């Protein structure tokens, strides 16, 4: 699956999109986030890091499959 990258997450991971293989065909968004942090430990040094699943802020309980649109959400700073 492809994970969309923005802001400092692009600098940490490199590029606008991360090609990622889910460790299970379906897993929770919190499991996915933990695996991403293991692979890219710099993410844990950010003030916050979260996922969006299908354009909504994830609360960790969402079931994620490779058909979902997932984005890494580093600390937002609009306004």
């Amino acid at each position, binding site marked *: 699956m492809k994970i969309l990258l*923005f802001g400092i997450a692009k*600098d940490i991971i490199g590029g606008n999109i991360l090609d990622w293989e889910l460790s299970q065909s379906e897993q929770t968004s919190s499991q996915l986030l933990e695996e991403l942090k293991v692979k890219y430990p710099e993410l844990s040094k950010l003030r916050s890091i979260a996922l*969006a699943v299908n*354009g909504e802020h994830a609360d960790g309980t969402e079931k994620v499959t490779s058909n979902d649109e997932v*984005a890494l959400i580093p*600390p*937002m*700073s609009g306004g």
Partner: protein
Amino acid sequence: MDKTMIELKETKEINVAEIIDSVKSDYCGAIDVFIGTVRDNPTGNKVTKLFFESYTPMAISELEKIANSVKEKYQADKVSIVHAIGDCLVGEIAVVIAVSTPHRKASFDGCQYAINTLKETVPIWKKEYFEDGSHWVFSHP
């Protein structure tokens, strides 16, 4: 006809008069407008520009949620929110929020709620450029 605007666009395309016009309503006596502009840093590093990027479809959806909340929580009639994307120089507009309500206090409260919530929930990221470097704002503790 509903002329309200929920948009991301280049700062030079942002027209404050058009945004204000979009929330006018004969049944509202009050419009509050918040304009966020790029501010030079009076002490320390001189800001040369900002750069905004967004996760656009989600940003629009989150902005729409904010506009709907302002209507519900503050009995606003119309809400428009326009945020800049791309480069923004000192003095240029980063964001405009306009809220019309029947009476004045709700327009201030609703507009302030909208900008505070925007900063917390809308996937937009700001990079600050200084004479000697750049950084993504709020990234590190």
